[in-house]
């Protein structure tokens, strides 16, 4: 479903991504791991159109997306969350998700001004969808709170709900477990699986929390210094000497367990 072919990107001479190629199949939970500064978030930003790749091409559902602006890519069906949470802080939880429905609410300026039946119809169905998503991530009780007042874990979940509101085929999750406590992490694992199993969304995941990665991933790619150094099933990655060497350093094998 997603094909990344030999993309590279430089920041002022520094290679952030070098010749990275990946294939993500429909229905997979695909993780990208690597040490800090390995280019994982940069990869996400290239995928979502924030940085256009210097070379290479990205195809999504068979169509080329590598020159499109972020909003167009979002409309093609790629949703994302952000490593350092980017919610609309002064909007309520409910509204945050409602913004995600933006492209699916179809009425004109005039409809909004005149409050036509079309307006009410679209708003109502959007509202139902939002309530459904809030239920799904377990934030229905906090719908009226301002996003900025939520706890860290709740904010992460809200970002997921918001990203799901655009009805993505592919969801990019950037370190969703960062800052979560063990109980929240467990809930997150369930949530990620539910996303795939119940909502049929393919997932591309960046995560430092190895326990989560190993528990949910179908496949894992490892980036180091902007290069892809390994790709394979979790078990294979766990055993891959290049990964252990480059990514974790000698003697760190236990922590992957």
């Amino acid at each position: 479903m997603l094909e990344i072919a030999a993309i590279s990107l430089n920041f002022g001479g520094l290679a952030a991504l070098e010749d990275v190629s990946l294939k993500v199949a429909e229905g997979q939970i695909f993780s990208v791991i690597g040490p800090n500064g390995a280019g994982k978030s940069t990869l996400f930003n290239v995928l979502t159109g924030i940085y256009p790749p210097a070379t290479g091409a990205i195809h999504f559902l068979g169509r080329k997306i590598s020159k499109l602006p972020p909003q167009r890519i979002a409309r093609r069906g790629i949703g994302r969350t952000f490593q350092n949470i980017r919610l609309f802080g002064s909007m309520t939880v409910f509204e945050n998700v409602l913004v995600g429905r933006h492209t699916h609410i179809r009425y004109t300026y005039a409809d909004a001004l005149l409050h036509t039946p079309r307006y009410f119809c679209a708003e109502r169905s959007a509202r139902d969808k939002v309530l459904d998503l809030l239920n799904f991530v377990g934030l229905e009780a906090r719908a009226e709170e301002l996003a900025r007042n939520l706890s860290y874990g709740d904010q992460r979940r809200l970002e997921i709900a918001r990203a799901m509101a655009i009805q993505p085929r592919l969801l990019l999750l950037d370190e969703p477990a960062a800052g979560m406590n063990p109980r929240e992490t467990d809930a997150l694992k369930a949530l990620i699986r539910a996303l795939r199993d119940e909502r049929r969304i393919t997932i591309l995941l960046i995560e430092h929390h190895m326990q989560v990665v190993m528990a949910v991933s179908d496949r894992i790619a490892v980036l180091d210094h902007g290069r892809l150094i390994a790709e394979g099933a979790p078990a294979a990655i766990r055993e891959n000497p290049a990964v252990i060497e480059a990514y974790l350093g000698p003697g760190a094998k236990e922590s992957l367990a």
Partner: protein
Amino acid sequence: MKTKLLSILLLTLACASGAALCSAPRASWTLLPVLAVLFLCLTMRLPRTVRFTAGLGLLLIAIPFAGFTNTFLFELGIQIGIFSALALGLNVVVGMAGLLDLGYAAFFAIGAYTWAIFGSTQASYFMNGNFPLAGWPYFYLFAALAVLTAAITGILIGLPALRLRGDYLAVVTLGLGEVVRVLANNLDHPVNITNGPQGISPVERPPIPWLMDLLHIFNPDASPALGYALFFYLLVIAIIGLVVLINVRLDHSRFGRAWVAIREDEIAARAMGISLTRTKLFAFATGAAFSGAMGAVFAAKQRFISPESFTLLQSITILGMVILGGMGSIRGAILGAALVTLLNIEVLKSCSDFLNTLRQTGFVLDLGFFQYNFALLPSQLEPAKYERMIFGLILVLMMIFRPQGLIPEVRHRLELEKDD
């Protein structure tokens, strides 16, 4: 129970203050309780019907009746109304969409000139036709046209400006605002379109025979001046009502949400599929449209238009109103506009008139240990001279002690309540 009690209290206060105003329309203290009640109508958490009844009752009954004796009330109302509409328009751009626009007065100018040129003999300098266009439909037609031209100008100015972010946008809008003013000041040659610094006058007002007929029922010697004061007062209130309605509806639509989203976080907004350019242009055009309409009203009401009304200072003052009231807050924009206008043309002026009267009557302030004869007040300390300084001071203090504005933005809870 408590709500009910407060509602009754508010309505009683409204009646009492309205009655007081009508009984002594010229004594400026009677305006005080009316303004206080209107303020409460804006801010109190009471059922909407109660606040509307009290507010509209004062605005549409008490003030017009008092205004028959003291037309300054109309002038005050009109100016507050005009600036409220401008503040509401700018609130869309700056408050909701977070785009810093320092050239907003340009759209006001576009609207004003749209009517002034065709509502006076000015148009005959560059085209054939029978000017001024004085019949009754023309003004309303051109007011609508002014909305359109202002919105189009908004898009034209927005197109280049919106490629830029944040503070760059500020300086570019400032520049383009100046461009509009300088053009208005200079386009008297080679073709005389705006009549340059001489301004355009007299600008036609729409005929109001129906209102005069109505007025004559109450007061047989009502002059056209009084009629027009009342007319513009009512017109402005009607437009404000419309503008508020549009604002509220947009706020509750995907457009309003997109504005706030790009204000909060452009990157996240784009990840939601929101197109920045389209959204920003919508904001610019919407904001500009409001001021275009008021521009046409302003031209007709002043009967005179010159570039002096559309300076950078004007843009800044409107921005000050929005921020003082509370960015993104509709009620805040109205309150901000009302306060700044009141301050500028009533409070500070009354204050200096008061001190001046003390000086002329040789009033001696006697605090026992300290005595001051106001007759000795030096001319350099003429209070009328320091109105702008006080305005500046208020802005600074306000920003330090209440930066979120008088009525901070409240994100709505309506989405869920509707189902209940």
